[in-house]
């Protein structure tokens, strides 16, 4: 089955999200759509799936014009979609989630779930999945949850499968597995639309690549195109994918953790007696599969966690147990994992977000008076220095794109006197251009003699930035290795396999 889009145009007010886009996806092919955040990929897919209505343009399935105005139309036309944020009910079983919206009533008015269970087992066998139909969804790893979504699409006979940024939430291992699954689906004749901005994955699996920039199709290229070329087509200018890392003297230890343990609310030890030394002028990356205690460790350093034991010395002074305010003002800059939840007050203006931490300090405040004038003047300076693209500093920060939001967080955190930068997943969800900027700033801090503790699940990022890499597994640092470690070795370490060769 093939899917063809002709002249799809969609505008939101004055903004053109899709500008007469043409696209053809063949059965048994993986068609990657590559573009930065805000390029219009998701808008296009939401139109195909019936979540949005195009202003003009036509959708053909197998050459037949389709009128898709809601998801059920798309489903009956054989189009399935796996969303970036899963549409699953966490407390339901896999089978219950799959029958959701298609419930069949059996004898005595009882929900008939046996058919769904059989279908799941059959599809799993056909495609080589191992998914237990009776497992509760919230107990499953993210990668399996995604498979549940894919199975759902397959059971309802999707011949065109849209995967919207499917790897954004996955670990490297899960990503590899998904790529294998995609190839399996392709072999069975499913047409796959693969939305992403990750170049490596595109080159690994795609048969065709369409690049979208600012709502327009920029080019259709083959997967043999180099990563550099793909990136510059996406962004519209030359992009430096491998930031320059100057070799330089590494200084004294500036942040030292001794037997640091963190317990979560339910009392489970999620960080177990960790020891490390972060030195001035180095990037120490903490790599690991999501959920192995990295988030808690990062939060514990700023004293955001409540149950912490052990010692944490910043420049020789104990900082464990300080208030968050005192920790930040002792010289720690903190880029939180979720900028939306922890980093920004979305209804506040950009200027206000830039002083969330310093609002009670001179020059912004004298006594309890807050000077709106100084706040916006300083904001203008930050905007210039960090190249934040905006209309006015008094606009709500929620009007900014993801990359610019992250710039606001970084600008704020680096506006205090900083000894150590704690960066937790600093480029998550950002596009290539913004990633480049964030990487430059992180290395800039390193070169200026600050210690940088980088928490990242992205192997490429870890390898590009780190001087040393600490691998976390089940709450422990199982190895600290040099940055010349190979990707394979690092992947194994992240899976908990301590390899003799990987130890430096």
């Amino acid at each position, binding site marked *: 089955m093939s899917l063809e889009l002709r002249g799809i145009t969609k505008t939101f007010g004055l903004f053109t999200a899709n500008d007469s886009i043409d696209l053809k996806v063949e059965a048994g092919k993986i068609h990657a759509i590559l573009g930065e955040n805000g390029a219009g990929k998701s808008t296009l897919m939401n139109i195909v799936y019936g979540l949005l209505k195009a202003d003009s343009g036509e959708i053909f399935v197998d050459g037949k014009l389709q009128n898709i105005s809601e998801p059920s139309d798309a489903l009956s036309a054989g189009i399935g979609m796996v969303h970036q944020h899963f549409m699953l009910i966490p407390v339901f079983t896999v089978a219950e989630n799959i029958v959701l919206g298609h419930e069949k009533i059996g004898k005595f008015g009882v929900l008939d779930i046996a058919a769904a269970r059989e279908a799941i087992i059959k599809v799993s066998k056909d495609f080589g999945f191992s998914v237990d139909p009776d497992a509760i969804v919230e107990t499953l790893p993210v990668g399996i949850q995604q498979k549940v979504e894919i199975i759902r699409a397959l059971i309802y006979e999707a011949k065109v499968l849209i995967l919207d940024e499917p790897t954004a939430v996955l670990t490297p291992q899960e990503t590899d597995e998904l790529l294998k699954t995609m190839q399996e689906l392709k072999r069975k004749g499913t047409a796959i639309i693969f939305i992403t901005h990750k170049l490596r994955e595109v080159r690994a699996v795609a048969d065709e690549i369409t690049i979208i920039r600012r709502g327009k199709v920029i080019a259709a290229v083959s997967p043999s195109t180099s990563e550099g070329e793909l990136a510059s087509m996406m962004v519209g200018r030359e992009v430096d994918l491998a930031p320059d890392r100057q070799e330089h003297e590494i200084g004294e230890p500036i942040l030292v953790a001794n037997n640091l343990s963190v317990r979560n609310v339910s009392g489970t030890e999620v960080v177990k007696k960790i020891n490390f030394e972060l030195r001035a002028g180095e990037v120490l990356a903490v790599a690991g599969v999501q959920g192995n205690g990295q988030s808690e460790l990062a939060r514990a350093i700023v004293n955001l966690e409540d149950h912490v034991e052990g010692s944490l010395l910043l420049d020789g002074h104990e900082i464990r147990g300080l208030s968050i305010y005192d*920790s930040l003002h002792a010289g720690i800059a903190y880029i939180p994992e979720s900028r939306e*939840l*922890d980093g920004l007050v979305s209804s*506040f203006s950009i200027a206000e977000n830039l002083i*969330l931490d310093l*609002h009670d300090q001179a020059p912004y405040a004298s006594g*309890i*008076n*807050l000077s*709106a004038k100084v706040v916006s003047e300083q904001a203008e300076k930050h905007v210039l220095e960090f190249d934040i693209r905006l209309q006015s500093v008094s606009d709500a920060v929620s009007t900014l794109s993801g990359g610019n939001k992250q710039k606001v967080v970084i600008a704020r955190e680096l506006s205090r006197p900083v000894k150590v930068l704690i960066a937790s997943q600093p480029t998550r969800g950002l596009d290539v251009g913004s990633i480049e900027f964030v990487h430059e700033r992180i290395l800039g801090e390193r070169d200026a003699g600050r210690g940088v503790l980088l928490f990242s699940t992205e192997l490429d990022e870890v390898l590009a930035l780190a001087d040393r890499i600490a691998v976390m597994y089940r709450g422990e640092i199982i190895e600290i290795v040099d940055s010349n470690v190979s990707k394979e070795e690092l992947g194994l370490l992240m899976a908990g396999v301590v390899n003799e060769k990987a130890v430096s």
Partner: protein
Amino acid sequence: MMRNLLSKFGQAAKLPTLSFALAFSITGLLIAFSDPKVLAKIGSPLEFIKSGLATIRNSYLALFQGSIFDINLARGHNFFQGFYPLSETIVISTPLILTGLSVALAFKSGLFNIGAQGQFIFGAIGASYVGFHFQLPIVIHIIAAALAGTVLAAIWGGIVGLLKARTGAHEVILTIMMNYIAGYFIFWILKTKTFLRPGRFDPMSPEVGLNARLPRLAGDNLRIHAGIFIALAAALFVWWLLKKTTIGFRFRAVGANAQAAKTAGISVPIVITSTMAICGGLAGLGGAVHILGSERALSPDVAGSFGFDAITVALLGRAQPLGTVFAALLFGALRAGGRTMQANTGTPLDIVLVTQALIVLFIAAPNFVRFVFRLKKLSSSASLTSKGWNG
């Protein structure tokens, strides 16, 4: 600049104004249909509509007469007396502005203060005690009494904040329970020797001393008193606190995203406790002003429904200080005018409550108002109510 401000104000007032218009239209229908004289004419549509409209007109005219200006009172020797209704409106609105500000400020910090009623009661207790028990010089006595009420209520409100900050207990549950305690506490305290007026057996305190009374603004015939200036000053204070100070910045930050505020080093427990204390103080000042300005003596039902109407007022005022002032004046007018309406046209006073309820209903359901008026976009205020619950 000026035009900008005006359009901003217009934008903010759009939803309340439309809700207001819608509520009054529906109330009008209710008035017409609840009048037996109108219903008797249902046989001939033209007569029916005619008499219906007449009833509605008369009722709303009476509402106006009872809340703003009454020509009958102005006839005769004193034209000024015609403004007696307006004076009554302001007397009712004054405490309502203060309790409304209490709820509005809490909204801004992401808290839902249902406790203005109890805080009001403690403000009234503190003010009346200092008012009748001490003999102090003029001005000083007023300040001391008002301060006593404010501080007592600030402590009462602060307890809620402290409990929430320390234990995570929900402020809605806490304040509701604290209202019960306050409501029965005032019954008890009025039976004690200290508070019971000598020679009386019904629960009623002595009147506050002459020096502790807020001066009347328009002679002895009109009850309007200087409390309205205190209320307006409080509105100005809340605006200044929220917009111009670091304290208000923290309040708003915690209200909008407590997690991000915490991550940036703002102490959420301190914000919650101090917000609730200030909110308590505002509602308490309302109680104090009510005693010192118009009531003069403490009685068990001194608080009326000032604390509960405050929630409606703050919602209608979209938790903005200026909006709260307007909303409180409107509610004061409805309350004052309702009585006249009942007396003159026989339309029940309860219809005013229906109007109030409808206004809030529409404010809370902005999409419905948008649908009725075929508007494209209306900035939502629904988040105002939901935030307090999540906080």
